[in-house]
């Protein structure tokens, strides 16, 4: 049974971005059990990963946008979760990316985040966007820089502590 409208899908040269679905639970469970999730609220128990998946789906219903599950077009492998994130109390609407084990170093986060940002600036009409990056997460900082985002300081979040804010170029500069 489906209760939510079909979520918009995006396609890039190598990737497909589609809405999160119940079948994505094993991928999230594995990601949140790994050290790769340390900068993004992990590690989480299987129960915590399930709640996160439910929250990801609900984010779409509450905001009209959210994070997509990113798959390789060629193989169908799930490579990460990338998209637009803005829960209550978030500093500003964010372009966010998590890459799963084994798919780093291919430029996938940059490629998917670029498509997500285009959707935010285009279909959703966002006037600006940030990305939040933990100071120690150098790989993620490089993705932000490749996207042309510029570090503008730190904010404090009750769950994530002090976290760096990268400001993306304005919509006009991304056209």
């Amino acid at each position: 049974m489906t209760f939510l409208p079909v979520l918009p899908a995006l396609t890039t040269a190598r990737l497909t971005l589609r809405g999160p679905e119940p079948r994505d639970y094993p991928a999230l469970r594995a990601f949140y059990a790994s050290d790769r999730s340390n900068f993004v609220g992990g590690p989480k128990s299987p129960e915590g990963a399930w709640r996160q998946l439910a929250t990801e789906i609900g984010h779409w219903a509450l905001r009209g946008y959210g994070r997509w599950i990113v798959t390789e077009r060629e193989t169908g492998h799930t490579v990460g979760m990338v998209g637009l994130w803005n829960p209550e109390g978030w500093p500003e609407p964010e372009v966010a990316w998590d890459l799963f084990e084994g798919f780093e170093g291919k430029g996938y986060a940059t490629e998917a985040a670029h498509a997500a940002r285009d959707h935010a600036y285009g279909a959703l009409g966002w006037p600006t966007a940030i990305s939040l990056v933990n100071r120690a997460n150098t790989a993620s900082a490089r993705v932000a820089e490749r996207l042309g985002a510029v570090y503008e300081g730190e904010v404090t979040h009750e769950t994530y502590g002090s976290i760096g804010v990268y400001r993306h170029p304005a919509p006009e500069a991304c056209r």
Partner: protein
Amino acid sequence: MTRSAIPVLETERLVLKGPAPEDYPNFEATFTSYRARFMGGPLSEYESWMLYAAEIGHWQIHGFGMWMIHDRETDATLGMAGGWYPKGWPEREIAWVIWPRVEGRGIALEAVHAARGWCYDRLGWTTAVTYVDPKNASSVRLCERLGATLDEDARTVDSHDIVYRHPAPAALAATPLAARIAAELADHIDPSCKPKGVPLD
């Protein structure tokens, strides 16, 4: 986004609908308050919003979940009730939360009775439990008014809770229990002590 396709349940005084974005402030007010002490709270605003989103995702994952309880006349939200089965729960639960100051009108009984009936009739559940903190006297009492009984052999969620097992579907159809629930609801809907007009003398 268009509205979700979560089914709508109607009772005498209530309409149960899927959780909507505009209903969130009422949820947050309860879950960030002392009222949420038996439900893992009080939560921060961020945690509360993440939970509310998860309540919606739960519907998509399982095909059932928690409804928002609305007053039929005013459309005001009064609380939530429905089926709840996140990862880690031993069994499917019939769960509820009633906003502060809504208590004492049989709202939870009416909503949970309807939600339980839907889970039994539409989903074919043959049993259901409710996990409750034993200190949560009003929820323990509601379990009993719903005909649920303490199941000491059932697995708990976290050992701080106790398990009430709901009567099987057959025990709810045309039985003394069903009549008792109907009578209690009828009394809330039309209290016999309510003045019915201006006395003539």
